[in-house]
């Protein structure tokens, strides 16, 4: 395959092919009931935390604004369920430190219908108003980055964009939520695309979907409105095809210059799930109260894609999906870049695309793997999609030569996709070392 892709000319060069394990691809999206308590952290996105506008004891209706955006680099949050604000307190989060969150006790008989809405006539809105409306939905990148969507759409002064790239790759193994969204909500997606095209003023849209999801490709093509400049393109299945730069490479055959954003090439990249939700939320004037999450892994009895209210604690999700008690590791996101979490009280937030549960067996198998010094097999160099040299970087990291890593070996370009660690026969935790090194370099730069 590596040879083939080298000459076939469609994908980026390197990358890996982990077993896809997309067991839930054939099941339709299921609804998850409310947990007794929902926990809505004020910071679920990259940027500034939202400001809470409720107080403990206050009753909230599903869809009601409970925290407002604190400036441009922030998004509001809406009540995921009808109930009573129980507390605003520190709660465990996926990223580690505890953070402020609004805890809502859900009414026993609460309906999942979103009652709180302000329908608007989208065709009457100016582009800037659409972007404002996007911010009001509280939308962030649902692919996992959780970057506020309205900022991505706002084209800065002097720049111009021509193409909207919709990322439907979902290259992480196990995850199928985007896949199901594309199959089941193709119309919503098209609606979302239409609004965003107006908001950004792009001339066309290209939807990139990995070619292991041809049913999604067909569904999307069927949904493309007549005459719309919306193109659906299948791209080779390869990890990390879903990374913006890799997708752009696959679609347009160009590399985004190091240190630059796709915006510099006139491209806006958004995730399919984001657009599909926007397509529904914008005209209805609702906020984001739920999302689709893949709950899967060897440790889950009833895996599937669940539409779940934001703020649902993981313990509830795992109970509902049937994850047995001897499960050893719970990962938010996919197996390649996902975050292992420490507490099952961590809530599902806007950026969580999957919940992966691994069993004791997989864990002991990995624990038994011996750590060797780098034997310089070069697999990581062949796997790194960014064209770095993880082998040398790893050796430098072991000797704490962080500044050399940054200056001579382009550490800053690493986006921690995990390919190098995935292939490493010596079991060196390369990504972890790079994360530490980047952190130290950042601190050094700040000091």
């Amino acid at each position, binding site marked *: 395959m590596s040879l083939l892709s080298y000459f076939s*000319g*469609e994908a*980026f060069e390197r990358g890996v092919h*982990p077993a896809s394990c997309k067991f839930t691809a054939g099941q339709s999206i299921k609804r998850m009931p409310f947990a007794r308590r929902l926990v809505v952290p004020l910071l679920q996105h990259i940027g500034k935390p939202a400001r809470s506008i409720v107080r403990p004891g206050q009753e909230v209706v599903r869809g009601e604004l409970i925290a407002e955006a604190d400036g441009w680099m922030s998004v509001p949050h809406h009540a995921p369920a009808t109930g009573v604000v129980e507390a605003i307190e520190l709660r465990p989060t996926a990223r580690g430190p505890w953070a402020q969150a609004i805890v809502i006790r859900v009414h026993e008989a609460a309906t999942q219908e979103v009652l709180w809405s302000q329908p608007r006539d989208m065709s009457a809105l100016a582009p800037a108003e659409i972007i404002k409306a996007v911010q009001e939905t509280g939308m962030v990148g649902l692919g996992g980055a959780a970057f506020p969507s309205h900022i991505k759409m706002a084209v800065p002064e002097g720049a111009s964009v021509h*193409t909207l790239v919709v990322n439907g790759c979902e290259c992480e*193994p196990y995850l199928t939520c985007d896949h199901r969204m594309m199959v089941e909500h193709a119309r919503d997606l098209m609606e979302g695309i239409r609004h965003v095209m107006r908001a950004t003023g792009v*001339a*066309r849209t290209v939807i990139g979907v990995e070619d292991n999801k*041809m049913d999604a490709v067909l569904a*999307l*093509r069927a949904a493309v409105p*007549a005459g719309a400049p919306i*193109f659906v*393109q*299948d791209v080779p299945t390869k990890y990390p095809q879903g990374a913006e*730069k890799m997708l752009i490479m*696959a*679609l*347009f*055959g160009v*590399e985004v*210059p*190091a*240190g630059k954003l796709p915006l510099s*090439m006139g*491209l806006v990249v958004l995730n399919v799930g984001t657009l599909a939700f926007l397509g529904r939320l914008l005209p209805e004037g609702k906020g984001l109260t739920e999302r689709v999450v893949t709950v899967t892994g060897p440790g889950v009895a009833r895996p599937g894609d669940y539409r779940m209210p934001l703020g649902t604690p993981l*313990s509830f999700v795992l109970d509902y999906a049937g994850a047995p008690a001897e499960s*050893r*590791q719970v990962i938010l*996101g996919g*197996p*390649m870049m996902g*975050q*292992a979490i*420490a507490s*099952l009280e961590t809530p599902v937030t806007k950026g969580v695309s999957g919940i992966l549960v*691994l069993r004791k067996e997989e864990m002991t198998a990995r624990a038994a793997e*011996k750590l*060797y*010094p780098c*034997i*310089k*097999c*070069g*697999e*990581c*160099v*062949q796997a790194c999609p960014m064209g770095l*040299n993880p082998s*040398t970087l790893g050796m430098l990291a072991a000797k704490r030569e962080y500044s050399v890593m940054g200056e001579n070996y*382009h550490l800053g*370009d690493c986006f921690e996709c995990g390919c190098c*660690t995935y*292939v*490493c026969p*010596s*079991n060196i*935790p390369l*990504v972890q070392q790079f*994360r530490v090194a980047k952190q130290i370099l950042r601190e050094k730069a700040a000091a």
Partner: protein
Amino acid sequence: MSATIEIRSAPHVKGGYSVEKIMRHVVYSLLPVCAFFVFQYGISALASMVVITATCLLTERFFVRTGTQSGSISDFSATITGLLLALSVPPGFPLWMGVVTGFIAIALGKALFGGIGFNVFNPALVGRAFAQAAFPTAIASYTASFLPGRFTEFIPSSLAWPLMIPPETAEWLKLKQLDALAGATPLGQWKFEGIVASAVDLMTSLGGHMAVGPSPLLIIACGAYLASRRFMDWRIPAAVISSAGLVASVLYAYNPSHFPNPLFTLFSGGLMLGAIYMATDMVTSPVTSRGVWIYGGLIGLLTVVIRYFSGLPEGVMYAILFANAAMPLIERISQPAVFGAVATKKARRSAAFSLETPASTLRESKDVVIPIKVVSNNQPPKS
């Protein structure tokens, strides 16, 4: 339940390769080669193989125990060193010299640098080069293969007293009335007597009584197994063989009477063993893509240059050692290009879309966008 949770860093899945697995499969792939070598030369070869490998393992164990180097015997790397060393010395190599060579290979070639993963030079070749310099006569004294009685009788030089000169095998052969078979290697015969052996015979090593190493054909087959399962980087042997073949062909075309035909060069001596098993030693070969080609090309070129123009008949070992020494330098000048570092707005590869002329480009016509993989009667409406 939360007590049983484990925190690990991403990624949470792993590819199927581990150091042990790679090394184990290299050993597996070496077994047929070793078996054939024993078939060719009988118990002397077997004894030499056992003694050298055992020495390597014991030395490794000693240095691991004393805390000088990392690694362990279970990673099979010392086994590989031992087997390769045994395959690259004559079958009648005195056993005591085998012990010295095996010790030097691990001590000087590996333990000195801190063990597996840190050595700069291929340990087997360090041992081999040491032996070549220390015992030049013994290491050049091959006997012919397929001698009668090879499974019951040792080649006398094998059993030389420690520190003593091994007895001449020529005398022994004369006693057995086989003195016509006194062994000069095909390369030696070419270099010193101008006799070019048949490439086909060399390739199979089955063409009668020849003083050759393990069969190149078998090595290629075993190497192909390793390469196909990605336990070996196929580009290195490819680079070595094509570069050696190219240089040899050019020289042959230039003066066919003075230089041997390229096939002879490729299949004689240790070129195949070196290209497939020694040059590909992961630790001592570059990790970068371009570096691998430069490295292999350098080995091929140097091998032919040393063979044809220097005083020695065989050059693979020195070529690889030299390339090992140059490896850090090669790697330094061949760092991979960072994604986007040399980016242009021009498409580097053929792609379905172009950036310059959105919405009007021809490439976005219906035929192009709809991929081959789509079942054709199910084309989406696009008008």
